[in-house]
């Protein structure tokens, strides 16, 4: 009896193992085919010369040399970083302020305001780029230029000038993602116990002091999270500039990003080797940049420490 029970137990455990492997296998099969294999193949291709059709030939580090000596690559990296910074960094400040306001108990129409601020996130990046593309057209009659003229400033050639294109694209990025970040900060604020604020108020702390000594320190994990997402996302910028600039997207360099450079190499110039080398360089940049930014954000001094209760 004892023997058979033990056997039954063992077969139950074996059955569980078989079930488990069976249940995780669909993911890992798909991962092997469209995740792992392409990633490894990319690393391999980065050392080959290939036009996508003929034979490959090993070229060592040539692809990397070609990319790293190409001024257009450095221009696109510069563009990516500048637009990434202008599009995402202000979101942290404005997002925290918005979330702080939306979290106030006295606020009326809270859900309506929250939904309105979040609404841009629903639109696709293509739609955003097209709508803002009309707003930021080169004409004097474009709404953006009309507003500038109202304030006595000159019209800007938004699509073809160095800073015009970058500013227009950064504004698109900011507009679409600010609601998303606000919602994450709001979730963070709601996790902060209310009696902390109450105690601070009794001690006579102003709203600004509350923000500085309670909110920011306790919100830090959420800020780190959004900074990580923003860094990774900003370095992959592709859709907004491509759609905004339309037919001139790959022939001009004012707003070309690293992913656009990669795309142009691979699919316009049929140079899959240098395209793959760019992909590997991009992976390296993303890992380094997100590590640095996450580290810097985690290092925000926890000012709350000095406060005595």
């Amino acid at each position, binding site marked *: 009896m004892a023997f058979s029970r033990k056997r039954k137990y063992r077969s139950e455990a074996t059955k569980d193992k078989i079930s488990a492997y069976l249940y995780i296998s669909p993911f890992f099969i798909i991962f092997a085919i469209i995740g792992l294999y392409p990633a490894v193949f990319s690393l391999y291709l980065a050392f080959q010369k290939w036009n996508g059709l003929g034979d490959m030939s090993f070229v060592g580090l040539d692809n990397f040399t070609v990319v790293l000596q190409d001024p257009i690559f450095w221009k696109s990296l510069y563009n990516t970083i500048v637009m990434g910074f202008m599009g995402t960094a202000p979101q942290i400040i404005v997002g925290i302020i918005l979330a702080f306001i939306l979290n106030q108990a006295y606020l009326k129409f809270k859900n309506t305001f929250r939904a309105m601020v979040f609404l841009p996130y629903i639109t696709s990046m293509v739609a955003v780029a097209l709508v803002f593309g009309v707003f930021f057209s080169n004409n004097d009659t474009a709404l953006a230029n009309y507003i500038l003229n109202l304030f006595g400033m000159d019209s800007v050639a938004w699509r073809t000038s160095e800073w015009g294109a970058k500013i227009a694209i950064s504004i698109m990025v900011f507009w679409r993602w600010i609601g998303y970040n606000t919602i994450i900060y709001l979730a963070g604020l709601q996790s902060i116990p209310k009696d902390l604020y109450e105690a601070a108020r009794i001690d006579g702390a102003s709203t600004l002091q509350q923000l500085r000594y309670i909110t920011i320190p306790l919100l830090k994990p959420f800020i780190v999270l959004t900074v990580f997402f923003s860094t990774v996302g900003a370095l992959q910028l592709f859709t907004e500039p491509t759609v905004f600039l339309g037919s001139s997207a790959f022939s001009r360099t004012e707003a070309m990003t690293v992913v656009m450079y990669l795309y142009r190499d691979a699919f316009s110039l049929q140079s899959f080797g240098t395209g793959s080398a760019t992909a590997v360089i991009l992976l390296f940049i993303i*890992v380094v940049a997100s590590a640095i930014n996450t580290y810097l954000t985690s290092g925000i001094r926890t000012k709350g420490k000095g406060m005595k209760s």
Partner: protein
Amino acid sequence: MIKKIKLGRFFVYLFLIVAAFLSVFPFYWMFVMATRPSAAYNSIPPTLTPGDQLVGNFQKVLEKIPFFGAMFNTLIMCLVVTLVVLLISSLAGFAFAKFKFPGKNILFVSILLTMIIPPQLGLIPQYYLVAKFGLLDTLFGAMVIFFLNPLGIFLMRQYISQSVTDELIEAAKLDGCSNFRIFRSIVLPIILPAFATLGIIVFTATWGEFLWQFTVLRDPDMYTIQVALSSMNTTSNVDFGMIMSGVFWATIPLVIVFLMFNKLFISSITEGSVK
């Protein structure tokens, strides 16, 4: 003191109203432009009231791009991707939450690591694979890479280990339930709320996807809506009224769904990223 508070609140509301206005104004402006002839763009001061070209502009869209076909393609793509991701993620999440097996931790950590790899790294080989299997210009080719969704497994494992108790599974086993039966009759009904969360995340992300479709879809009949919309902007002599009309009609269904379920949408974002 009270005056000070009132003044503070006045500025808070002012800030919020300005932010809400800036968030919503592009939608209104998109609607205005979708109802105006292209010439309206050259008027000073700018036109800010709707005109009478709502139908006319949309007819131009229909002549230019296969709008309904593209919407249909996108809808099918989003539904299939969402269903496949839900199924794969819940099965694997169940295994990672409730079973013991060798290599479990290493496998789970490797899934998390795949989340860091940028999708562009595999772009060229994925294109090559899809081309080799003759899947360029097919809906399956346009959706296949989105079946891979590590975040889904992560969320599902989290939800299942919190909401499905071990006692419940033990009891079902004593009653002679097979593992798959437990998954189907016990786990699935419990994790329906998590399906809503993950489903919304996957559906909206797939809906807005552009780079991959832009790469593998060249035949206008196979376009998804994002590629179709972007193709309106590439010809010279662009008709702004037509573009805005296309964007308007492609955006409005999502906006309506969002306004109906906005709390669910917003909570899905926090659960999807904060947990």
